[in-house]
């Protein structure tokens, strides 16, 4: 039952991958990757609960934090400033 709820998320991630590949500008790609990472966290927790794998929860926490840091670094890079400012 819980497995069927993963199908729309995977479909959404596939649609977002289209935007990540075809996106005309760099912020489009960053936005698509960031959004699909958040959806992937939800799918990971779903699989962890369904199959009883504890380790996926830790991986999902690390993935959420890493996606945030990556978005901030790329925003700084696009703005043309260094990390200290």
């Amino acid at each position, binding site marked *: 039952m819980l497995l069927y709820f993963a199908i729309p998320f995977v479909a959404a991630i596939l649609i977002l991958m289209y935007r990540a590949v075809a996106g005309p500008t760099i912020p489009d790609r960053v936005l698509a990757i960031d*959004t699909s990472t958040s*959806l992937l966290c939800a799918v990971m927790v779903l699989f962890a*609960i369904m199959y009883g794998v504890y380790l996926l929860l830790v991986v999902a926490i690390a993935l959420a934090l890493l996606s945030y840091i990556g978005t901030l670094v790329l925003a700084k890079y696009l703005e043309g400033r260094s990390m200290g400012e």
Partner: protein
Amino acid sequence: MNGIAAILAYALLAVGCFCALVGALGLARFPNYFVRLHAATVAVIGGSVLPLVALAIYSLSIPAEWDIRALYSSNALVIAAIIVLTSPVGTHAMAKAAHKAGVPVEPKVCDKLEEAAR
């Protein structure tokens, strides 16, 4: 008790699936970056935080020891809190950086930030 938790979790998961699909479709179809940002927020908050809360409720009803259930539930809530706290910050920083880097606003109606920068 377990049946009520499972039904509530399934309802929230169904809403989350709908929000994820709608947000992804909007991100694929909307005309420029700043409109796509709006659809991405729907996909993140509605499509990711809501299912995580639903899974935190659902994991309380699985047949396991209480500490296993508490582990799953608390971890799902922590991930939901991380996403709901960090996603708006990243989105704001990315939007400001994109506007500053000259990403085109194609069907332009009103651009207060560009008027203020002049």
